[in-house]
């Protein structure tokens, strides 16, 4: 049809397409491929190579060829990664769209929403989102060394000169105040690490697959109150990738798609310039994010089968689960320690072992894990059947299965800091 032939047609009015709610986007997009490199402390590879292999693995997982991916989104913290343009060349991808954004935790879920947006806008068809960094061997987030020589300039003068300069130190006032306000105990908090380590022991990829006890956590050396060494995640070298496309295209891919119900991207508390100025500091951004997440997903926390709550620290998992409404305000300590989060529990959390045990990726490995859970094909040590899929035993003892039964809905809760968070709800397609 030529433009002149089209002239007589009436353009639909915006009132006829319901753009006042995101309902029309629910389940319209899917994650069709996931991939990662080895999680290690010393990859011996450039971030370019890590990114390239992660994307290649995700394309293979999806059954896509280089020409099928025409969008790239990546994130980096400081300049700890390689931009899309270099990686595209190595993969034979000609991007119709790319964007490399600054960010650490909470970026994954935000970029998934952005990928939906750029596809919806017709800018490209299929987006690979990747994160590649040598978080141990090159740029350590809690690191000393190079960072010490960087001048403290301007607004940073209100924090760093007080020896307040790592994520653990930045978040600690929220954690401590939560203990003060609600009586949360060190033993309850330590259970996050205990449970995630149980899950990691059933994950052949996990960097720290050894199970630990509450006593192990509490007797590890204090980093800054309330965080012991084992309350902190494990700095890791890795590349990770997820591929987003429209659900109708997803049917041609290899696996059951993980349909995207809703996303929240970097939702903030008031006064995000210095979030401790506003509100109870024992409440985090999830309080605001949940007002977007659950209505958009059209489900509530009680319907979620598996969660992936960002565990840069044990405490971040607790505060997010609480403020997204998985338990009543102040009862996060009980929620994370009563067995609910175990593989055998009512709503397992971070079934791969998460940042505390599998590897630290700034959030993306927890989305990868939930995609696999939704496929009913977690990559554990269960025997592989004739169709190439694992025959899951659901025996969750050490070294065993980590596939949760009948997973239909998952939630990912991404954390940047107490004042900023992102989220994602996915459904089995």
């Amino acid at each position, binding site marked *: 049809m030529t433009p002149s032939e089209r002239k007589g047609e009436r353009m639909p009015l915006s009132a006829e397409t319901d753009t006042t709610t995101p309902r029309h986007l629910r389940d319209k997009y899917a994650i069709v491929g996931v991939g990662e490199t080895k999680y290690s402390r010393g990859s011996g590879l450039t971030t370019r190579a890590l990114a390239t292999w992660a994307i290649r693995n995700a394309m293979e997982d999806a059954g896509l060829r280089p020409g099928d991916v025409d969008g790239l989104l990546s994130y980096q913290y400081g300049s700890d990664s390689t931009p899309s343009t270099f990686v595209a060349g190595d993969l034979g991808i000609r991007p119709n769209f790319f964007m490399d954004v600054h960010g650490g935790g909470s970026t994954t879920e935000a970029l998934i929403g952005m990928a939906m947006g750029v596809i919806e806008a017709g800018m490209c068809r299929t987006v690979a989102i990747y994160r590649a960094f040598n978080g141990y061997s090159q740029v350590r987030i809690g690191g000393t060394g190079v960072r010490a020589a960087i001048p403290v300039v301007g607004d940073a*003068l209100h924090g760093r000169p007080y020896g307040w300069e790592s994520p653990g*130190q930045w978040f600690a006032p929220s954690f401590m*105040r939560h*203990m*003060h306000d609600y009586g949360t105990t060190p033993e309850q908090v330590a259970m996050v690490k205990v449970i995630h380590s149980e899950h990691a022991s059933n994950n052949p990829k996990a960097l720290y697959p050894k199970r630990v006890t509450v006593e192990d956590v509490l007797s590890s050396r204090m980093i800054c109150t309330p965080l012991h060494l084992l309350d902190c995640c494990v700095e890791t070298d890795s590349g990770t990738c997820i591929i987003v496309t429209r659900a109708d295209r997803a049917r041609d891919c290899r696996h059951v798609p993980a349909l995207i119900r809703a996303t929240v991207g970097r939702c903030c508390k008031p006064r995000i310039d210095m979030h401790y100025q506003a509100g109870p500091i024992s409440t985090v951004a999830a309080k605001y994010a949940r007002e977007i997440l659950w209505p958009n997903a059209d489900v509530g926390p009680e319907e979620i089968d598996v969660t992936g709550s960002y565990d840069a620290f044990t405490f971040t998992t607790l505060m997010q689960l609480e403020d997204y409404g998985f338990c009543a305000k102040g009862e996060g300590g009980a929620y994370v320690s009563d067995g609910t989060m175990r593989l055998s529990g009512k709503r397992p959390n971070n079934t791969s072992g998460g940042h505390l045990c599998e590897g630290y990726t700034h959030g993306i490995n927890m989305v990868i894990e939930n995609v696999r859970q939704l496929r009913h094909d977690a990559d554990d040590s269960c025997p592989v059947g004739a169709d190439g899929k694992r025959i899951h035993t659901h025996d969750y003892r050490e070294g065993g299965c980590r596939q949760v039964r009948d997973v239909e809905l998952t939630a990912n809760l991404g954390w940047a800091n107490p004042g900023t968070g992102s989220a994602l709800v996915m459904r089995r397609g």
Partner: protein
Amino acid sequence: MTIQAEYLGMPLRLDDQDHENRAYFGLCARHSFHLQRCDACGLVRYPPGTACPWCGDPRAEWVPVAGRGTVHSYTEVHHAIHPGFREAAPYLVLLVELDTQRSQPTEHEAIRVLGNLVTPDGVLAPPEMVRKVGIGSRVRMVFTDVAQDIALPQWALDEEAPQPDRPWRYPSG
């Protein structure tokens, strides 16, 4: 001219263009705590900024604010990141809620100012002093001189104020 200084081996810098922070730390260097008060709504704000976080008005004037408050939260740092802090560990980073403008403009808002627990002459507090302070402790502002135009606002125990019987401390600490 750019102001450069060094504190505990940490290079500090204030650029020419950064009028708000230059004014703030310059006043601190005279051991005088000032915040910007919005001409339009009358609220004081922290940290310094270009416009009012409540009403957006850019007009403000520096007004003296009493450096007294209550420890709202804290962390006791055992593993120092910067080499300059290693000898001082464990040290306290305090988040102090000022008496001024408490619960304004809404119930859970306040001016909450960071700083270390220090001795009255501005030196990082020794372990026996660190152990006495927790959530609820009353503190007063003192200054650590760094250079001619920079001093850091810090917190010392307020000996004149009534202290809580037992400030809240991390259980095993």
